[in-house]
């Protein structure tokens, strides 16, 4: 019994060193050497300042930008700093969820008729609250609004959207998608005057 207890304590200490300290440290060294950009959060910089991460949505509400999916956690940012990533966790019969699903407002913003179907990803909150992507349909749905706000032709904005449609990985893994932050950055770069 005593022997088993000392063995238990020694084992716990040993695994603390091996799996709790050495393993993450060695992994960090390798990750920083081989894939430094990814290991540090795929950060995007503009004029030397970090403006976000390619893997994280941030809030856009202005008409001149494409909007990301709704977030149940204000895109990970609260009044005092970090807000825990999360979905709404509202169930299928939730009245609150039905209220949140504001398809009509999106139609109005895009000046579409009242029977135009709205892509689901634009009205439903993502699982993480940080989903960096919208579906290609979700992006095309917003083209007319963005183009009008920027005084560009829908054709020009549409072409830009097409450039940013990522196919499923290796052709079949996952879904086609558009990274909203990267699209908006490109949009600003393509519009000569800052609107």
């Amino acid at each position, binding site marked *: 019994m005593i022997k088993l207890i000392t063995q238990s304590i020694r084992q716990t200490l040993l695994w603390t060193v091996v799996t709790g300290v050495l393993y993450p440290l060695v992994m960090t060294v390798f990750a920083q050497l081989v894939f430094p950009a990814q290991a540090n959060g795929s950060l995007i910089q503009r004029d030397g300042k970090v403006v976000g991460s390619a893997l994280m949505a941030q809030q856009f509400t202005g008409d001149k930008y494409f909007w990301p999916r709704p977030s149940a956690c204000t895109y990970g940012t609260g009044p005092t700093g970090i807000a825990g990533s999360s979905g709404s966790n509202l169930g299928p019969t939730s009245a609150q969820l039905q209220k949140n699903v504001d398809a009509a407002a999106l139609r109005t913003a895009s000046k579409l008729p009242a029977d135009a179907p709205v892509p689901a990803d634009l009205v439903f909150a993502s699982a993480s609250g940080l989903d960096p992507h919208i579906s290609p349909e979700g992006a095309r749905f917003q083209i007319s609004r963005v183009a009008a706000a920027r005084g560009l032709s829908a054709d020009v904005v549409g072409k830009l959207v097409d450039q940013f449609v990522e196919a499923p990985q290796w052709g079949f*893994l996952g879904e086609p998608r558009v990274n909203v932050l990267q699209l908006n950055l490109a949009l600003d770069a393509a519009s000569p005057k800052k609107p």
Partner: protein
Amino acid sequence: MNHPNAWIQFALYVGALLFLTKPLGLYLVQVLDPRGRTWLDPVVRPVERLTYRLCGIDPEKEQAWTGYTLAMLLFSVVGLLFTYVILRLQDHLPLNPQGFPGLSPALAFNTAASFTTNTNWQSYTGEATMSYFSQMVGLTIHNFTSAAMGIAIAAALVRGIARHTAKTIGNFWADTVRVTYYLLVPVCFVFALVLVSQGIIQNFQPYTVAKTYEPYTIQVPKLDAKGNAVTTSVPKTDDKGQALKDDKGQPVMVDQPVMVDQKVDTQTIVQGPVASQIAIKMLGTNGGGYVNANAAHPFENPTPLANFLQILSIFAIPAALTYYLGRMVKNQRHGWAVWGAMFAMFVAGALVCWHSEDAGNPIHQKLGVAAADGNMEGKEVRFGIFNSALFATITTDASCGAVNAMHDSFTPLGGLVPMFNIETGEVIFGGVGAGLYGMLIFVVLAVFIAGLMVGRTPEYLGKKIEAYDVKLVMLVLMVLAATILGGTAWAAVSTWGQAGLNNAGPHGFSEILYAYSSSVGNNGSAFAGLTATPADGDMHYNTTLGLAMLIGRFLMIVPILALAGNLAGKRLIPASAGTFKTEGLTFVLLLVGTVLLVGALTFLPALAIGPVVEHFLMRAGTLF
């Protein structure tokens, strides 16, 4: 379900799983034998020997089931206390760049129990609660040890079945040490690096504060100099916005916090040693995320490829263990029969879940949401409907519990699948080790039922299954069911239980049922709207769920090791014409039938007042 891409991914997944089963199974045969040989021997063998020396372990000295069990229990208790202390003292320990405080006693207990038992239920928000030190030292080590322990116990049970007239079932220390060194650490090392290539972070920096593109304003409560919320007295109104009057006709006044505008022009981006934890979280079917959103968070699961590898790693070891079983009992067809039964239930569950999520929610479709898009609430675009449903099925078939979509927002039947998967004991490939030993409980039961049907003493692989064995099996099944249903019932009728709910109506009941199922099943996924750590500090949920995890883990393992010890001591009886064959289609069907029957008989009444009734209410358009 008319998506060719999805079917291709499904086929690829199944193919990869089938392909991995045999080679990984053969590797496990070597790993789980103290004298086994692997290609890692030149590097790892010296480390292994050193470990034995440092810990005073003689790997060749086998233990009886009692010694094996005692070692397992003591090791768990020490680990539990160790993590409890780290979490409580977090603010005094290093690597805490965000300056998080120590955890409350109930939360620290719940978390320590959760990670010790391979549950990895998280009553906290990772990125806003845990320091890097707590994540690495307090939690990652349990990801390894609890996984190694599960595999060790499965091996001990298999040895009990394979041996005859034997007194011992292996050495607990040698099993866990070898599994960690030869299997978990090397695979995780490669796996974590691949995950980093896909975008999972791995660093020790403080959180990055980005200057966002488009500043916006939010409303926050105004605070006075002491940090207390400033309130003002306003007339109270009813649901329709009419001012309420008291008996004297005076307006009823109520205190309301004063809100002020705050400009937000930054985004806080989480950092930390994430990839190293994610690799073992998936491979060891732990499932405890680094951040709150778990594998839905772009930093835990950035691409469809990362997603594919993560779900493959959940099933890899459990599938290989069925091959290990076949090899050890010298009846490979038995191993494949167990694999086949698991596989059939996996495919059935995945298809039901996928179909439900794909069909979506008529309530929202009436509002003009594109019906073809399915139910996207709580799902990520890069995974879509199919990969979210597949992940949910796999993570609950196994006792993993990682999530890449919010199960709470699934359609009723889509959410029923994960819940039922957990309640049937997570034996569909299952957790590492836990899936196999759980399934072997059902195998013994199936053999017993078959014996009753033909009126013969049941036999399993040349051993008589007797009253003592069946009693142990029934003990396991009944304790687990009673804990799930008892806990659910208690919470459902208590104020503290209802206070934690995020949804009303039958969905609220489902949140409670899921919580206790997940804890007892050591799964760790959740209908995550449930708040187990309320702001008022109520300890009921964290304490009862923590106890449920301990019961679910140890009241399962101890009888199983007793069964292993008892089986090991039995004599072999030669097979005869009347021996029930534990291979082939008949056996697969009987095994699947046993699992489903026990699960259905026990849990259908509870499921009927949760997801089943909710399904019909959703179709009728009822809202809560």
